[in-house]
């Protein structure tokens, strides 16, 4: 105000002219800057979207690759295990068997029956690998508990699981997807983490289904997960990502605040209850 009071009338009009022009220029410059800046931000986002699309392609390729591997494994199991077993049975039950003495006949039939039993067991194992019966018949909770009991039963690692809120089962296909993700995560922990315990907890909160796995070994955090997801390695993690996308869920990897263990959290929308 002192400046204004000290200025003469002509000075005031000069200040007025300069100030007004300055303010107009500043305002217009601000608006142009905002528009330009936003365009730049949008370009950046488009680039990120493109990268995400590329990432999705990688994930899709990974999932196709995994499917192919699974088929190959299945074919190998059938060809290498079931094939020779059945061929052996065929050898035991050849047409010469009727010409053999009774003891040899009984021995051959017994042997063939033994091999057929093995083959049945083998086919059952293959089928269980495709769709665990516990999961189909009793749900995710039982299947996970079963899996953890088996791991714990080995004696090398302490595995436990606790479902807090699982009265209403998820849809069958969702359960299978989550179970596969858990299997993959557990597999990774067993293979790479060298941890002494694995603990799984489940709960439902704000219409969301949560599942968290804790372990005290070597683990990864979110940035590692994203890095691995973008790289050519880590097929299992890519598969986890694509499975999570199928159920519209999220997976996050973090280290606990206490820095003593790692946490993997699965979050996805809860199924709508069936209409009565």
């Amino acid at each position, binding site marked *: 105000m002192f400046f204004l009071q000290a200025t003469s009338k002509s000075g005031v009009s000069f200040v007025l002219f300069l100030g007004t022009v300055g303010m107009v220029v500043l305002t217009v410059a601000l608006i142009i800057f905002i528009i330009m800046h936003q*365009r730049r931000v949008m370009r950046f986002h488009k680039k990120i979207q493109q990268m995400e699309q590329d990432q999705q392609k990688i994930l899709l390729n990974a999932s196709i690759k995994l499917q192919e591997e699974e088929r190959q494994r299945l074919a190998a199991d059938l060809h290498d295990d079931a094939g020779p077993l059945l061929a052996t049975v065929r050898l035991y039950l050849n047409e010469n068997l009727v010409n053999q003495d009774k003891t040899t006949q009984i021995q051959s039939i017994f042997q063939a029956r033994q091999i057929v039993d093995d083959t049945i067991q083998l086919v059952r194992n293959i089928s269980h690998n495709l769709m665990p019966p516990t999961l189909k018949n009793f749900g995710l909770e039982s299947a996970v508990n079963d899996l953890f009991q088996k791991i714990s039963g080995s004696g090398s690692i302490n595995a436990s699981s606790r479902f807090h809120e699982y009265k209403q089962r998820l849809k069958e296909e969702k359960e299978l997807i989550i179970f596969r993700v858990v299997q993959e995560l557990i597999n990774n922990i067993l293979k790479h983490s060298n941890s002494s315990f694995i603990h799984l907890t489940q709960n439902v909160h704000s219409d969301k289904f949560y599942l968290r796995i804790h372990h005290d070994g070597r683990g990864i955090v979110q940035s590692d997960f994203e890095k691995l997801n973008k790289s050519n390695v880590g097929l299992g993690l890519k598969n986890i990502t694509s499975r999570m996308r199928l159920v519209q869920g999220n997976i996050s990897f973090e280290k606990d605040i206490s820095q003593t263990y790692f946490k993997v959290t699965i979050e996805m929308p809860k199924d709508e209850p069936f209409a009565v």
Partner: protein
Amino acid sequence: MDKIQIIEKLFSYILESSYLLIPLCFFFSKVKNKALPITLLFYGVAFFFFLHFYYDIPKDFRKIEQTVYTLLEYLFFSYIIWLITDNKKTRRLIFWLSILFLSFEIYYFLTSGPQRIDSIPVGIETILILFYSILYFINFFKENTQNYIYNDSSFWMIVGILLYLGSSFFFNILANHLSDEINDNYWYLTFIPEIIKNILLSIGIIIYKGDSKDSLAKKPSTVPYLDMI
């Protein structure tokens, strides 16, 4: 009537009419039942009548008239920004600063003498509205990354308000220091950004879709019994 007076009269009529453009666009807009277009409708109608009868009010009441004008303008602008901002902190800040401004306006009214224009409240109003506008832009960039800013109706409203307040800021601040000659000859120039503002507010009403920016769904900080400890 000399040339300047004719120009001033012409600008004055255009300015008055430009306020009517806002209610006119309101009736042509697709969304009428939302707070923002309704506020703008009231703004247009109120200021049309205010300007229309501005010089009919006796000079003794000029101080009241100026105070009410500044206050109404501030309240309308701040309420418009308050409506188009989703950010709770910004809204709270606007609310408290408005209370402070209101108190100051009352104090200024009671303590100041007669003058050409209430420069100080107008100056503070301008600074506050410019500040809110910048906050609006910051919030827009934080929350909205999908749409171009100029596709948003609120952008045109803010640009109108910014241009109007920015351009008339020095005129308003120095109004009491200007000679009568300069004031009479150049005052009508402040009508230009005001007309532009009214046009931009009208564009804002027309392109207004009633969409509120969805605030990002926040992750629950803690899910019971999910952690081991």
